[in-house]
């Protein structure tokens, strides 16, 4: 039950932090808001690293086994936060959640296909169901706007 709860809370925290970030961005600017996001995030991740007692394997730093692109996740993350701060005030929180999910799911399927050379049928069928449910509700909204 504990692990189920923290998974759900992890989901809630995604939505809450997105909205808080966009509120800050509205006041001080999107780039500035993202900057503070990373300053505070770095402080907390250093704290967690300290508490976790995870050893930093410096030997890995010199190893050639890690490709350079593995270090660029932070760069992609910046783009994610900048774009999220821009779009969050413009559409409903629920639609944003679903649209992000759909983009993530289908691009994830494509990545899996090219890197693992396997295609997950369950994910494709499930993804189409999610997409049709979202499309149906978006249609209801469109109809309401017209009347």
């Amino acid at each position: 039950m504990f692990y189920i709860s923290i998974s759900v809370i992890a989901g809630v925290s995604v939505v809450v932090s997105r909205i808080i970030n966009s509120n800050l961005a509205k006041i001080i600017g999107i780039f500035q808001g993202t900057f503070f996001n990373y300053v505070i995030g770095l402080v907390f991740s250093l704290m967690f690293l300290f508490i976790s007692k995870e050893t930093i394997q410096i030997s890995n730093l010199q190893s050639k086994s890690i490709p350079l692109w593995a270090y660029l996740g932070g760069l992609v993350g910046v783009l994610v936060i900048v774009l999220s701060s821009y779009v969050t005030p413009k559409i409903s929180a629920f639609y944003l959640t679903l649209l992000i999910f759909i983009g993530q799911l289908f691009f994830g399927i494509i990545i899996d296909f090219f890197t693992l050379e396997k295609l997950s049928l369950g994910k494709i069928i499930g993804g189409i169901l999610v997409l049709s449910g979202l499309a149906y509700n978006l249609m209801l909204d469109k109809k309401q706007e017209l009347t």
Partner: protein
Amino acid sequence: MNNLLSAFIGALIAVMIMINGTLSNAFGNYTSTVIIHIIGLLSMIFVLLLSRSNLKIVKGIPLYFYSAGAIGVFTVLFNNLSFSKLGVSITLALGLLGQSLSSIIIDHFGLMGMKVIKFQKRKLFGLILITLGILVMTIF
């Protein structure tokens, strides 16, 4: 346009998870989170300099407005804890449940400065399809 942009954010997140997962395999969860934040912070400083944005402290902003970065680190921590016990797909499905429920509630009451978008009963059909889709993905 906003809808497309939102789906694009999702695609970026898929790429990011793949990249960060590779880093995490090499360094461990916590060390890689620190590396990710350092790279993110450096690129953000670069963007600020390039766009010549000025960074001034605006007074009177409630402290929790700055908390998003901290919450993000908690998200990572909670996911890590749960991944190890429940596995990837259950964790993701439950996380998505948390995201969906909280955003429906936030929309309905217009919490945290968001526009009020009341939940309508006729949208239940779409919601059932969405839930079914997530179930299918988790089970298969």
